[in-house]
């Protein structure tokens, strides 16, 4: 009980108070701890904890396969994917590269052309300059390409052999290979994982459409307001929005005013008369006041859009932010003083 409950609670309270008041204390060690060490400790613990998670995932999938539970076939893919990434990260490096030295100057243009072709480089001259620079510095020239397999590298080496004296095949050191183009891990990352994630992310476009449809369905006053604001925002953000004439803007205003006034007006005919009369009145007034030539900016859709974005939206989001901020402060306070211990299971 003491180790499971009291010790974690003491750590939470101690570190919480230190982090909170450390911000105000002018003592370098405390500030270092708060800003760097504590964060690194957390990262280290989290990195070790990943083994727990990975083993749990593997255990569940293997059990599913062994017991042939429902949809167990998918688990084969999960386990195989796990094994494949482990293999690429810890057992198979790839990232082979070739170094060359000892060139004859008359063969240099041809050598540069072969390398440029392999690297998809337009100008062999650029390669030639680099090779000459390495020759001047008396160092080996490393061809700027990593090969996934030693076999592919050797095939390319055969093409270079007639032009150079020394040619070596090497591989990048363990660890750096995971971030290096040409390694198996890199290939998995960019050609399997990234496209899969992007496919998942792109689903958002369709879901935004279906969610917007539901949100914009006219059910009550708020939904109508949302629909109008949404239409104005969409129109105001595209070039065609600027071409919409002033009387559309004035009509939107009249509709908005009538929508607000609608609950207080009993007769439907009066409301229809208000809307129709208002629209006709505004168009006549606007024409008489010369708005066709010089329309007021208040009726411009991009201006209305900017206003919606700069004021009502910001006001709403700031109210939310203040509420969320206070919620975080109060929850943190409850945790720091040891009042809320639900996360420890109490």
């Amino acid at each position: 009980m003491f180790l499971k409950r009291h010790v974690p609670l003491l750590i939470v309270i101690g570190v919480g108070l230190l982090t909170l008041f450390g911000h105000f204390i002018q003592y370098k060690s405390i500030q270092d701890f708060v800003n760097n060490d504590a964060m690194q400790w957390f990262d280290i613990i989290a990195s070790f904890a990943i083994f727990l998670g990975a083993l749990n995932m593997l255990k569940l999938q293997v059990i599913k396969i062994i017991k042939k539970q429902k949809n167990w076939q998918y688990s084969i893919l999960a386990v195989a994917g796990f094994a494949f990434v482990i293999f690429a990260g810890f057992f198979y490096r790839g990232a082979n590269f070739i170094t060359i030295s000892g060139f004859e100057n008359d063969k240099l243009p041809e050598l540069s052309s072969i390398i440029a072709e392999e690297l998809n480089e337009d100008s062999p001259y650029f390669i030639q300059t680099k090779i000459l620079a390495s020759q001047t510095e008396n160092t080996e020239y490393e061809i700027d390409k990593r090969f996934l397999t030693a076999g592919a590298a050797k095939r390319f080496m055969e093409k270079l052999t007639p032009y150079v004296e020394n040619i070596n095949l090497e591989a990048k050191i363990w660890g750096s290979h995971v971030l290096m183009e040409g390694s198996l891990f890199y290939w998995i990352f960019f050609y399997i994982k990234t496209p899969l994630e992007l496919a998942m992310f792109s689903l958002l476009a369709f879901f935004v459409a279906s969610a917007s449809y539901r949100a914009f369905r006219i059910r009550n006053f708020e939904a109508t307001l949302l629909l109008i604001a949404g239409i104005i925002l969409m129109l105001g953000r595209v070039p065609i929005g600027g071409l919409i004439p002033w009387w559309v803007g004035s009509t939107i205003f009249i509709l908005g005013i009538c929508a607000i006034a609608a609950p207080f007006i009993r007769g439907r005919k009066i409301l229809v008369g208000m809307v129709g009369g208002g629209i006709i009145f505004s168009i006549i007034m606007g024409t008489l006041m010369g708005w066709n030539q010089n329309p007021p900016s208040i009726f411009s859709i991009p201006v209305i859009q900017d206003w919606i974005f700069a004021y009502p939206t910001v006001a709403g989001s700031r109210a939310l932010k203040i509420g969320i901020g206070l919620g975080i402060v109060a929850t943190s306070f409850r945790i720091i003083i040891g009042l809320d211990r639900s996360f420890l299971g109490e």
Partner: protein
Amino acid sequence: MNIKVIMWSIFFLIVMGLYKMGEGVIFVEGLRIQFAAVIIISITIYYYIDRARSGADIYLRTIPGLKALEEAVGRATEMGKSVLFVPGISDLDQVETITGLNILGHVAEHTAKYETSLNVPVSKSIVMEAGREVCKEAYLRAGRPDLYYDDMVHYVTEEQFAYTAGITGIMERDKPAACFYLGKFYAESLILAEAGNSIGALQIAGTGSYSQIPFFVTACDYTLIGEEFFVASAYLSKKPELVGSIKGQDIVKLLVMIAIALTVVLNGFFQSGWISFDILSYL
């Protein structure tokens, strides 16, 4: 005036006096207002906790999303389906995740009581361990430790969209009757909520990521907006000291509103040249 208010006011003045004396030597210069804000917020919340402990009656308005928690579990029980709880994609260093786990305890208590299956896929190992502890205690509290098993809280992956794909897969295969999204969410929020919507699950969401709230509001049946999410644990526990902290939080909100109004007025006076004191220079 209440004696405790006077005591706390004196305490505040002493602490601020000490800060002023040690400013530049022990305490960081230029953070006086921030420090005062921290002390005022802490004192206010603690004062109301203390009041609640001493038996003061504190009114809490009904939060439909929290009232619906039991209803959602009950619905899953009636339909003979499982309950899915997603605690977000962040680690335990985020208050939202901790709040999500706190609510998980209450959900787990209901699933234990109703003998309904609970599925908690997580994306962080530390959250998995904490989630297991929370569920274990909840099942024990409900008197059904026999129904608890470790793998009801299981790890999926750290990657955001792989995790999302994993959860939508679970939804499609298991068709849970109730889905809870309570924690920190980013772009995956709408994918999860729409997937849950497509299977007809009753969905309750809550997050501190303010940009994701509109998505949840659109696609879920109940959404805990803003501070509603953070008071959930206190609201559900009904412990006086936790309920008191909610009242304290509301009073702090009132103080913030007063401070905003005062700042606007004083800044307006300053800009009109009526006063020479610039309030914004203190912030």
